[in-house]
């Protein structure tokens, strides 16, 4: 199955917004061009027949080891907050978020 992937500039803008990446007006054409090239490579990969191959979530031939439910961490708030830009009453402060 071959799907020709291409991407429009407005899609790049939407993805950039979702990823919180700022791309300036003069850069956007170049970014679109480069991502289009990557997608062409994906097109090439898509051409491989994978009908009988099971989807792979991870390249390692191993499964997840599980941890026993035990508390192993102690309170290190002071150390962590020493490097935070702004804290108050034990909270990290960030620019106002409006829902």
């Amino acid at each position, binding site marked *: 199955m071959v799907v020709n992937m291409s991407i429009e500039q407005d899609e790049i803008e939407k993805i950039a917004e*979702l990823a919180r990446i700022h791309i300036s007006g003069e850069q956007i054409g170049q970014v679109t061009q480069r991502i289009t090239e990557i997608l062409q490579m994906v097109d090439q990969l898509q051409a491989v027949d994978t009908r009988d191959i099971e989807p792979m979530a991870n390249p390692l031939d*191993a*499964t997840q080891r599980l941890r026993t439910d035990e508390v192993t961490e102690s309170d290190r708030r002071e150390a962590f907050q020493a490097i935070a830009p702004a804290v108050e009453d034990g*909270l990290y*402060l960030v620019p106002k978020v409006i829902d």
Partner: protein
Amino acid sequence: MQWETVIGLEVHLQLATNSKIFSGSPTTFGAQPNTQASAVDLAMPGMLPVLNELAVRYAVKFGLGIGAEIGMRSVFDRKNYFYPDLPKGYQISQFEAPIVGRGSFEILMEDGSIREIGITRAHLEEDAGKSLHEDFHGQTGIDLNRAGTPLLEIVSEPDIRNAAEAVAYLKTLHRLVTYLGISDGNMAEGSMRCDVNISLRPVGSETLGTRAEIKNVNSFRFVEKAIHHEIDRQADILEDGGEVVQETRLYDADRDETRSMRSKEVANDYRYFPEPDLLPIVIDDAYVEEIRSGLPELPAEKHHRFTEQYGLGNYDANVLSDSRSLADYYEAVVADCGDAKIAANWVQVELLGQLNRSDLDIEDSPVSAANLGGLIQRILDNSISGKIAKQVFEGMCQGEGSADEIIEARGLKQVSDSGALEIMVDEVISGNAAQVAQYLAADEAKRKKLVGFFVGQVMKLSKGQANPQMVNQLLAKKLV
């Protein structure tokens, strides 16, 4: 036009583990802000998640409890979005291959009818932190104690048709997960949070209408109110020829309304991909069977057994199987007194009434099952009347001891001594000549009513301790 409501619920259930799903931080509720947030929870560079086995076990337990397919090989994915209480910029969740697949359970409606509600899936994920929007001079405060708390997101099929069914579904689910012991089910502390997907369609239509999602409704009552409100809102739009917009709405309990969360509209593209930091979770049959063999009797099974074994009606069986502790208590009382019906009455009316008034759980009952069983025995063997038994029960609530001790100490034993009763009956008859004359002049039907007066007088005289059956017999003999 007549509209049919279609509702699907997503419940975020907090699992009762001691440590977080991917780190060794504690999950205790109410700790000082950020004192339970480790480097993993804070998304410090280079930190890697390690999955908590108990979270997996609890998820499987739930799956078995609803007869679902268990995902023997499940995969974690990254759900990407930006919000300050999610420091990694993604939530580790499960998308394509959840740990629990399709299942179902039955809900019992108030009219006694039963509905089966399908479960689409349930998957493991981590909770986010908490944002506090007030009081920080225009800034938002972030507490990451909750970040990484294990959640099981339980997604229902759109099988629910009204608010009452939604509430019954949630109550049944709540009962199930507390029976299973996988969650403390504490709604006030956010252990069970609910998103409601709701849409309307013309009655008879098979296609689904456009839905709105109401986020984070945290009590049974609010779920009911939010659904009523949303049905009205959507019906108004549709009646006016408008179209419902697919969006996320927030229920405001103070104003009893839902409002749009506009900022999230654009962000609804989570770009899921497999979490490279975690390998697939593979469990085997032995693991599942070990969990299955440890399952307790489930609420529906217990309910059914109570109706069969004790001859209880649906309502009584439902109340008494509400929690494992209450059911155990009830069964202990039955075992002690041997009368399932009277035990059901006493537990529901007197005991639960008392616990409600003093805001106590059954675990903290001031009256032990053995004491309540002992009290009922004394009613059954006619040592005390039902009325006196209530006094004894009050004594038990005050910690005065067993039924026999209280009856003895307060001198409440029923008077069944015919000699003593006869004296009292004679006294009442001689002291109420007018009533006696009236009684003797009356016909059979009227006499039955009038005799109550004399019984009452004798009971009064005996401070409620006279054996009422014997008093009736004596009166019948003497009032001639």
